[in-house]
């Protein structure tokens, strides 16, 4: 038993927590992914704002998180999850599926491009992160309900 628990604990370190929440509803999973995404934006945004020094590794960690999230995100909006868990998903996700999927695809594309760019300076970071931030914004405008 002890060994089993230890293996589980070890697995938690190997795999990001988001992959182990399979028991949660899609609404909760996608909410978590968006929270992770937002948290990944904080160090990058801090550098862009000039509040934190440029840190290539930290930036790359965020880029990888985004690329990973973008790969899973689109599958978390099956029929029947239009409501519940206080979801901020707009109905357009289901009525305009092609448009939504195009946004998710764009997110994956720019996140992977950012990883590939591997920025080594603040200017390069701006170039790499800009399109990702833009894709967050444009998808939210079309497919997220505005609360407050």
């Amino acid at each position, binding site marked *: 038993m002890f060994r089993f628990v230890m293996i589980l604990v070890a697995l938690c370190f190997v795999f990001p927590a988001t992959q182990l929440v399979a028991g949660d509803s899609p609404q909760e999973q996608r909410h978590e992914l968006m929270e992770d995404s*937002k*948290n990944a*934006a*904080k160090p990058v*945004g801090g550098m*862009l*704002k*000039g*509040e934190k020094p440029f840190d290539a590794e930290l930036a790359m960690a965020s880029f990888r998180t985004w690329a990973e999230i973008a790969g899973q995100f689109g599958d978390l909006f099956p029929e029947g999850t239009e409501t519940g868990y206080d979801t901020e998903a707009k109905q357009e996700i289901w009525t305009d599926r092609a448009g939504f999927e195009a946004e998710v695809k764009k997110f994956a594309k720019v996140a992977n491009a950012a990883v590939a760019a591997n920025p080594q300076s603040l200017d390069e970071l701006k170039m790499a992160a800009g399109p990702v*931030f833009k894709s*967050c*914004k444009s998808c*939210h*405008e079309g497919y*997220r309900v*505005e*609360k*407050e």
Partner: protein
Amino acid sequence: MRWLLTALVLAGFISWWLTEPGSLTAEALPEHQPDAVNGEQVFNTGGCASCHGADLSGGLEMSSDFGTFVVPNITPDVNAGIGGWSMLDFVNAMMLGVSPQGSHYYPAFPYTSYTRMRVQDVMDLKAFLDLADPVENTPGSHELGFPWGIRRGIGLWKIRYLKQGPVVDVDPGKTLVARGRYLVEGAGHCAECHTPRDHFGGLDRALWLAGAPNPDGEGRVPNITPAEDGLGSWSEPDIAYYLESGFLPDFDTVGGSMVEVQENMARLPAEDRKAIAAYLKSIPVRP
């Protein structure tokens, strides 16, 4: 009985005189060569396209407690737009809310803010608008309930609410804050949504920028004073970065009708976004 009649007639004359639309004469315009490049910046600060439409041909319907306002065409089309206007016509419309025919505009057109602009900036804006493509679209008329349908009455409203001076006192030595005040209180017309209105639709200056009901429906337009539930926890770089990128300090993204405003602000020089941030952090806290 006769005294009553006399009083009524007198009251009629006084209110007619009080509500007379006052406009400037050509001599009031300064010597100035209009600069369309600066005009474009003024255009972005004002976000003219957010209401007048991407092609500026108008038609957007704005519902309010007083009825429905229809946004006019401001393209250079001579018949449908403002192509036939002189510089003086334009300045009178923007800064005094008076049409070329000499009647009052409804303050849904936020001249109560534009009245604080430098005349030169208004002239530059016209030079920029003159470059747009003319569009023939003629939007419909406003639909307003009694007594709001009587334009002349706006003259009384203007006595109470059309004030040229700045709202917040700023130490003249603080040039960045003063620039921010000029942008926010003038062309940016931020208070038109972020300040609550009284029963007559005038801005409640005691609650300057303290947030207001959302005219588009649910929720509230946020408090942008340095209050706890306003911008208290935001730094000046946070505000400037938000206006540039659309990301809040917690890295959520801008939403609602602020999206277009933010995207216009992103087109301003970085120094202007800094100025807006400096002003917003310096104004009195309101609940």
